[in-house]
């Protein structure tokens, strides 16, 4: 018995003290990378302020990074000595600082794109996960990631991903709250901060690429149709949704019907695939022939009602209700005799 106890103590000591991989060593290297995290987060914050045309100050850094004023002031000093910012009443980025901030933002948005397309991590965890990951991906790894993802240009929230050279397009977005009733537009971006607001908007089923049509606005609420479904949110929340006017060729279908509404024995034509269906799943469905114009019919339903078997391009494929809901259709003639 004593022998076992001694063995356990020795193992525990090894775990804590072992050089390079022990937890003490881990703590030490964590402190060094913590400093890097603060520097990068502060730069990102100042960049964000400049992008939004608000004033970035030592005070706002303290608030954004959740650190004391003194700590923030020291951080600003350090950034100036590194030649990243010019201090004053308002903090300004130097060209070098801006390019550094954009590199961090590039990694952040690429990583969000990766999480959205290649993993099954839920939507509301993307941003926080990327907040951590943006600090420990090297430039080379980021480029490899970008290539792997097919050089995406927008993150899943609709934010443009800066190019390697740190360039961003001009934005011509307006907040959803600026629309009048009767206006139509397309959601181009949903702000992922603060997380509580973002989680609410995600829970409402909103995502970039949706068509919106405003039904009524008042100071308490905005009521609009998003892909045919009615949504009511507070104007404060609507401020976190950006929209852009529809392109000339875009037309809003009168009413979105989803594949899920198709009854057994009915046939329809696919008109599109929801933007909320991403990555592997999206490619799989398109490979199977779920593209605008193809015919699809509901063949039979499983014992428990989910999944449902559809005939697509002559093959019978079982799809879950969740996916059927992401496929938009235009009902065709009903095969009523057989149903």
């Amino acid at each position: 018995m004593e022998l076992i106890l001694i063995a356990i103590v020795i193992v525990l000591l090894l775990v804590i003290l072992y050089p390079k991989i022990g937890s003490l060593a881990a703590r030490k290297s964590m402190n060094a990378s913590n400093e890097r995290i603060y520097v990068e987060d502060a730069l990102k914050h100042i960049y964000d302020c400049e992008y939004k045309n608000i004033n970035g100050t030592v005070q706002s850094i303290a608030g954004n990074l959740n650190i004391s004023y003194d700590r923030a002031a020291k951080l600003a000093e350090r950034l100036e000595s590194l030649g990243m910012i010019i201090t004053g009443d308002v903090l300004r980025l130097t060209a070098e600082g801006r390019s550094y901030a954009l590199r961090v933002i590039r990694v952040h948005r690429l990583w969000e794109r990766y999480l959205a397309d290649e993993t099954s991590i839920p939507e509301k965890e993307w941003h926080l996960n990327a907040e951590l990951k943006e600090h420990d991906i090297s430039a080379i790894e980021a480029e490899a990631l970008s290539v792997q993802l097919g050089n995406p240009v927008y993150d899943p929230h609709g934010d443009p991903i800066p190019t390697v050279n740190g360039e961003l397009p001009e934005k011509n977005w307006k907040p959803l709250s600026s629309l009048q009733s009767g206006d139509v537009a397309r959601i181009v971006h949903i702000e992922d901060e603060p997380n509580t607001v973002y989680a609410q908007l995600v829970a409402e089923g909103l995502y970039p690429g949706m068509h919106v049509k405003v039904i009524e606005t008042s100071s308490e609420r905005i009521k609009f149709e998003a892909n045919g479904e009615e949504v009511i949110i507070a104007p404060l929340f609507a401020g976190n949704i950006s929209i852009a006017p529809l392109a000339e060729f875009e037309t809003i279908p009168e009413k979105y019907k989803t594949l899920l509404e198709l009854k057994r024995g009915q046939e329809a034509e696919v008109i599109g695939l929801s933007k909320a269906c991403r990555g592997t799943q999206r490619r799989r469905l398109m490979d199977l022939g779920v593209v605008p114009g193809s015919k699809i019919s509901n063949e039979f339903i499983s014992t428990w009602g989910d999944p449902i078997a559809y005939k697509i391009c002559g093959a019978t494929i079982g799809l879950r209700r969740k996916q059927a809901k992401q496929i938009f259709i235009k009902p065709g003639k009903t095969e009523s005799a057989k149903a």
Partner: protein
Amino acid sequence: MNDKKNTNEILKLADELRWEIGNDFHDALAESIHADAAQIAAVAVSYDDKKPQFDMDRTIDRIVTSPWLGFPIMFLLLAGVFWVTIEGSNIPSGYLASILVDTVHPALKAFADSINTPFWLSGVLIDGAYLAMAWVIAVMLPPMAIFFPIFSLLEDFGYLPRVAFNMDNLYRRVGAHGKQALTMSMGFGCNAAGVVAARIIDSPRERLIAIITNNFSLCNGRWPTQILIATIFIGATAPAHLAGIVSAGAVVGVAVLGIFSSLVVSWFLSRTVLKGEASAFSLELPPYRPPRILQTLYTSLIDRTLFVLWRAIVFAFPAGIVIWLVANIHIGGAAVAEIFIDWTNPFGILIGLNGVILLAYIIAIPANEIVIPTVLMLTVLVSSISGVGGGSGVMFELDSIEATSSILHAGGWTLLTGICLMLFSLLHNPCSTTIYTIYKETGSVKWTLISTFLPIAMGLVVCFTVAQLWYLLA
């Protein structure tokens, strides 16, 4: 210089254009390719416009997926497959055992003695390596040679995808794929084959879940252990006329606990360590067709049965040697096995087992089939029972359950030992054949380690809890 400036301008323009067209151009490309293909097909392919009066496929599909008949049909078919496997394999198994274990083994021994082979050499090779291989072949081959072809025939006919289709709702809730119902059923035949079968799941996350949880299907090699122990220890607690039902109920209970564990672990994995893996769902439901019997028989025998059997034999060989050696190498007057058993016995008692069982599970890692023969050999060794078995290091089994029961009781086994052994037999590391197969299939040490140590950790916790509650209440 001018060239470089031009290049940069072009790249800059390209970047700007990429923002303008956005992320959707991949979709647009796929759509236009599809549209072109559809257009060509419309011109080039002619269809028979007349629809048949009676659509056979659809009729079968609507019956096997109907709310009333879907599950009864499925359970009857699967129960039938298992029944045929168990009943059908008894005779060839006994036949193989009588040849390989009862005839060839003594003959080999006699031959070795006649040419004056040293005791240790014939012990290592014949009593150890040969006997372990013979046992694995005799117990493993017949059920697999029956189960896999029937299973493959059902697959070829097109029924199994419908089972996955019906079961998907359950698996969706735990973050897995409906096809896991199939790999799980395959696991009841052999976990290594179940792991290989997980190739039918093409989504990475769901495939890993199916591989890691396959061990919770009570495999062919563990059914006999369950039945034997349930008969000796659990059946004995019931009145004689109910003994059969009670012990059968206990075995089914353990199998159901296995299915339940696989669902719980799937749920746990999909929400923790496997969150980072991509996931997609689609389930192809191919048209029914008459099974190609000969081709299916051939491929299922070669691809599944012989493939798995070969791996098991390769692992049984060294294990047989180790089993013989631990019983025959002596340090300070006691065999290595005895020393180890004495040393681990207190820990074994803590989780309701004993040192013999722990050692048997360590050295019989190549195949669950040889756990009981090893347990019997070790029990005889440590409790110095004379007159049974073939000597130290020689695995054996007894024809009568009473004789086995008396050996185990002499070894100090109680009802608690029986219950904990049944639980531990379900919840322990996969056999080395399966572990190796998991490594081959996933190509990852990480997932192999998780698949190995997760079930054994669960087994230790469950057995410990049961044993402590037992000691507390009894």
